[in-house]
């Protein structure tokens, strides 16, 4: 029964954090809001992994595995963003002009143009 109570407690924590995240999203928007929301999400994940997914009961292997996985998440996202962050503007989407639609893909998005203004005239 003690187990159940602990699980319930953690669950309560999760629900509270969810509510908190929702409430805060009304206050902060933009980058700060994103950071806040992600921090809260990470906290929730920590709770779930540690208690619900039995990480608290397992040493060694599983912890190593999950730590490794998160290192690699950081590597992939981090290096891609480092590269994108420094890339010259004309090579970042949206590019300066609309390329030809590839043959066979003649449906352009009807409304949302991928670019602000197709700078060039016909092709």
């Amino acid at each position: 029964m003690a187990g159940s109570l602990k699980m319930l407690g953690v669950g309560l924590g999760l629900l509270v954090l969810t509510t908190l995240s929702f409430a805060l999203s009304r206050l902060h928007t933009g980058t700060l809001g994103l950071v806040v929301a992600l921090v809260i999400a990470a906290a929730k994940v920590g709770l779930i992994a540690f208690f619900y997914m039995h990480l608290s009961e397992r040493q060694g292997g599983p912890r190593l595995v999950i730590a490794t996985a998160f290192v690699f998440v950081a590597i992939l996202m981090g290096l891609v963003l480092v590269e994108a962050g420094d890339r010259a503007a004309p090579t970042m989407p949206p590019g300066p002009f609309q390329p030809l639609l590839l043959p066979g893909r003649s449906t352009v998005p009807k409304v949302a143009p991928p670019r602000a203004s197709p700078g060039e005239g016909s092709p």
Partner: protein
Amino acid sequence: MSFEVAEPAMPREHYLNARRGAWSWLTTHDHKRIGVMFLVALLCTFLLGGMFALALRLELLTPGETVMGRLAYNRAFTLHGVIMVWLFLIPSIPTTFGNFLLPLMIGARDVAFPRLNLASFYLFVVGAVMTVWAILEGGVDTGWTFYTPYSTATGTDVLPVLMGVFVVGFSTILSGLNFITTVHTMRAPGMGWMRLPLFVWAIYGTSIIQVLATPVLGMVLLLVALERVVGVGLFDPARGGDPLLYQHLFWFYSHPAVYIMILPGMGVISEAVSAFCRKNPISYRVLVWSTVGIAFVGFLTWGHHMFVSGQSVLGAGTFSILSMLVAIFTALKIFTWTSTMYRGSIWMCTPFTYVLGFIFLLFFGGMSGVAVAVTSADLHWHDTYFVVAHFHFIMVGASLMAFLAGLHYWFPKMFGRCYPEGLGVGTAVLIIFGFITTFLPQFLLGNMGMPRRYADYPEHFQPLHVASTAGASLLGFGFLIIAAYLGWSLRHGRVAGRNPWGSRGYEWHSDSPPPEANFHEPPVFPYRPHDYSRPDLQPEVGHAA
């Protein structure tokens, strides 16, 4: 001078004859049988990929159309790449020798999840069939990299290949998962991490890469497939997407994947060097840590495939320096292997011939890798035959040699018989020679500026292409000989006995071929792996060839 033992006899019962009938093979949970089944499947795919290679070389014999048109050529190199990479080299050593030997080496009865092991075999078969299916549909012409937007626009049928590779990816993940768990939880009592045989470390490192990198490939292929089927356009510049993002995600998998292809080979070489020099590796810990190092740092360098893609200058620099860091580990290994020969007792037999070829070719292949990792030099070399030569030096010259070394080293273990040694050494020399004739000219072609994936080329490139094609036919001939004598030996080879090489690898502690349960009694490994210095520990019984 060898101390003669009576001609050894085959063990009466072993995994090959413990159960009979095709059904007992198809439903087996025995890691050894699964390893053998993988071996058969992989030899088929290698043959297929090799046929495409020979077709490529034939077409390139003359400028203009030699035997096939441009479309056929484009399809041929795509399928050659796809088959060789995903259907042969990535699964090659882990699923065959890894499966067969890993439990033996750590003294386990089987892998951790035997049923999963079988499942990964069937997933592989299904994926391979799907991929090869594309040939019947006319083939695919995207190159093995499936770069968007070309791969989303081409009229050839990319879908089965994408899905086939996706499924094979699952098989890879499951094998990796299985091996990691096995190494973690099933080591014989007392076998600490620093007592694992080096091959086990290599497979362990490989598995980490497989588990963490392959899903990204899976997702990316799925996105390309979705783009083709429903036009989600995540990488389509016409819809605001970025083709470079595709390249990032693809290479995040595919660069580590090249280490999936070489690490197991390095493991084989570590085993073979010490077995045939009868010497402990002069630094076990260097070999271990460089394996782990490659597995991790290998994840940081993917952007070096994109130096001329419009990637940011800072990004290029970062990836270039990180590539230099990963190269160090291979250098360490090469130095360690070479100096392991010091004060050994070197036996120039077939596997060791391949070992020498491996070290030599890996050195040049690797140094050409470092050369293309230099940002400015890559401006000239990117997507030329220099790169083709670079990766064939490593993938054929090193990985494939390691595969052959392993095949010859462990053939007696797996099937209980030896092959004709003289023929083996001769063919090894032929293959190494053929290899150099095939791919050395390609470095020069790359220097001259011959781009890859060219069905047709300006005339001044021809002489070197002719040399390359000539070498490829030598290679093909060499493989024919191997196929012939190994096939013959399966039936008629001399019975090997438990430990024909007198090796101290742990796997030789059980019979050759091993019994279904791997060991007759729980194994005891009384010494550190690769220890040849203590006479009291002589495990070798059997035929000294």
